[in-house]
């Protein structure tokens, strides 16, 4: 197995000793000369991998070399199969999602709060910083509102700085339940250009960058390459995903599917599509969106993001 990178060897060792303790994990890292700081995040991950890796999945990784591994991040056929997309509708899923709903409305949590679940249903929390960028008016703020399950702003109001939002999302990946804590960073494009401190603040320790374009605005699609190169010096191996907004107005799309395919292929990034509209509203004073309907709407997007971030972490342990 000479073509297999050091990182993979580590995986193999884990695979062999499925129940090895944390200490022996760390030893094996040193044995293979992989410079892996035994800090808690890595060890935590290792521990999780060892416990969760389905064997088939492991075998798959073993056959890759490190170059292919990078591609695997974005092109792996496994993507979309590790996560149970309709899980939030299952009896098991409902238990977990009850912690993020109240009276059929999505709950928002302050920074000192978190969803409360009974002790036997307390999954580990995985926190990720996700930065949204893209031309002014493409729908960054609207996308965050949609994902958070609050009313989408009906007209474009420039965001005069950074807004961050914490979203708790329970997901079942590779048969294990996790509580994802997405921390979305949304910066207004004008403010970002005007003040120097904004971009570095958003890129600091970022786990994923979402590049947004609007289906009804071709210049925003042309701007993507620009956006990607702007952060390339500081992205630190962050997961990159392209997001097309206003997919509900696909009839007026200015971007052909051919263009999308080419872009996906050239930049090796997945492209997700969102419809930032609230279909059903509750009859309360704020006319807030119906929490359950919103969950259905955003589940594919958030599950996909969760899965890719989780997968990226698994690989990072091997590639550090």
């Amino acid at each position, binding site marked *: 197995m000479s073509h297999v990178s050091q990182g993979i060897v580590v995986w193999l060792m884990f695979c062999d000793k499925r129940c090895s303790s944390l200490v022996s994990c760390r030893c094996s890292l040193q044995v293979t000369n992989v410079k892996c700081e035994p800090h808690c995040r890595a060890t935590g991950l290792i521990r999780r991998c060892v416990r969760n890796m389905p064997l088939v999945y492991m075998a798959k990784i073993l056959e890759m070399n490190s170059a292919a591994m990078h591609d695997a991040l974005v092109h792996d056929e496994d993507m979309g199969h590790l996560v149970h997309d309709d899980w939030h509708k299952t009896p098991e899923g409902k238990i977990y999602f009850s912690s993020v709903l109240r009276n059929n409305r999505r*709950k*928002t*949590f*302050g*920074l*000192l*709060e978190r969803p409360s679940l009974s002790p036997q249903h307390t999954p580990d929390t995985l926190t990720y910083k996700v930065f949204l960028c893209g031309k002014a008016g493409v729908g960054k*703020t609207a996308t*965050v*509102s949609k994902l958070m399950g*609050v009313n989408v*702003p009906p007209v474009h*109001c*420039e*965001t*005069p*700085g*950074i*807004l*961050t*939002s*914490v979203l708790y999302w329970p997901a079942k990946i590779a048969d294990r339940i996790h509580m994802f804590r997405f*921390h979305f960073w949304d910066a*207004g494009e*004008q*403010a970002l250009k*005007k*003040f120097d*401190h*904004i971009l570095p*603040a958003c890129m*600091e*320790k970022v786990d994923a960058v979402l590049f947004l374009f609007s289906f009804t605005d071709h210049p925003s699609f042309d701007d993507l390459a620009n956006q990607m190169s702007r952060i390339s010096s500081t992205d630190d191996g962050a997961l990159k995903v392209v997001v097309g907004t206003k997919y509900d107005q696909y009839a007026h799309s200015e971007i052909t599917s051919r263009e999308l395919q080419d872009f996906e292929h050239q930049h090796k990034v997945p492209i997700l599509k969102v419809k930032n509209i609230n279909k059903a509203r509750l009859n309360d004073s704020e006319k807030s969106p119906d929490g359950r309907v919103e969950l259905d709407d955003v589940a594919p997007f958030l599950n996909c993001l969760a899965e890719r971030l989780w997968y990226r972490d698994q690989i990072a342990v091997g590639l550090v």
Partner: protein
Amino acid sequence: MAAYLVCLTADGGVPLFTRTKGNIKPLAFAEVGMLNGVQMFAQNHGVKLQSTATDEARIAWKVYHESITLIVVICDDGASDTHLYRLLDNVFHSMVLLVGLDDIISIKNVERLKRDLKACYKLVDTLLEETEFFGDLTESVDIFLSTENSLLQEHLESFVHAADSTYGCLCVMDRIAVATTKWWDLTGQELVLLSLLLRSLPQASSRDIAVYLPHSSPKIPHRLLTFQLIHGVEACVLCGPTPTLDDVRDKLLEVHWKPALESLRSCIRVFPRNIPLSVELDLGILGFILINTDNHRCLATMHPNSTDEKQLPHKILSMSRKIGILKTFYKTVVGIYFAPVHSPDKEELTCDLQALLSHKAKDTYICGDDYKCYALNDDRYQIFVLYGSHVPTFALRTTTQKTLMTLIKDKKFDEKKKS
């Protein structure tokens, strides 16, 4: 109430933006030109055009720093012109708040300014909207009283100090519960506009917004950081280039606020009364606005009584009706009988009745079909109380006085402004 707000460059009359409120057709370009033309014509003949009235609407003009002209056209609700100018001042200072004074008073590139001013649209629209807040009307910031305030003050001070700042406040449901001395030293208008800015932005776990304080620092931006501690409670701090948002959140938030969690939770329970349950108020009171004109604080509630209003012997008024009545009452009293609260750079308006009177009005009241209102002007307080129609008119004065006394017993509200 429908309204138009027009912003143009003062010398060329180039439209910078127009905001429209209500279901009315947008102003045509020619109409904007005409509105500006009249004012220019007057100016060229050495006359300053201030305001005018049509059958249904009032129009006011004001030029700022010989650079920006603001024009408002608004349905006539019998309010004095003071309130039109206050609206225009608030709009102008909102522009300063987000764009900075330099770019506004020396316009180098009109197209760029136009683009930059887009950032203020939401804030300006919030000023035109009818909200449950009174700050922009009274130029005194909406506050929130709770029995936890003194404890929360300590947490706030240590938090703000740790963030290397002296400016900070804690907001409960968008009203200031506690703030540092420095924060209170900001002008009434700054306090109001900062609160308004936070309210106009989408809800967020944390924010990092560059602001130019209209009076204290109109040319150098500061960073306004906000952190949502629990649902409805936000800690805010004003700082320079450091610390970063991440630094404050990761290193300071838990340390300084986690121990206060229970206080924060019990604090929020006081909403929507906005005053502690221990403060007892007359059952005939349906709502009030109390203003401390000295330290620019405004305490208002539309839920004065914990008892179910259905059990009380008066007709139920909806929340928005109560607010509407009190706002209209305020606008017809202040600027005509009572002096308005002034921000530092405001010009005296000679057309106001109260400026012409040799004596000061102390009380005034009106009786509507299903309500009564009483206002009292006392030294540095103004209180406007809405009563149910069953309360006898002769009792309004003493009840209002008693209510004022009860409320100002709370030291937080009475606190003198230190300068």
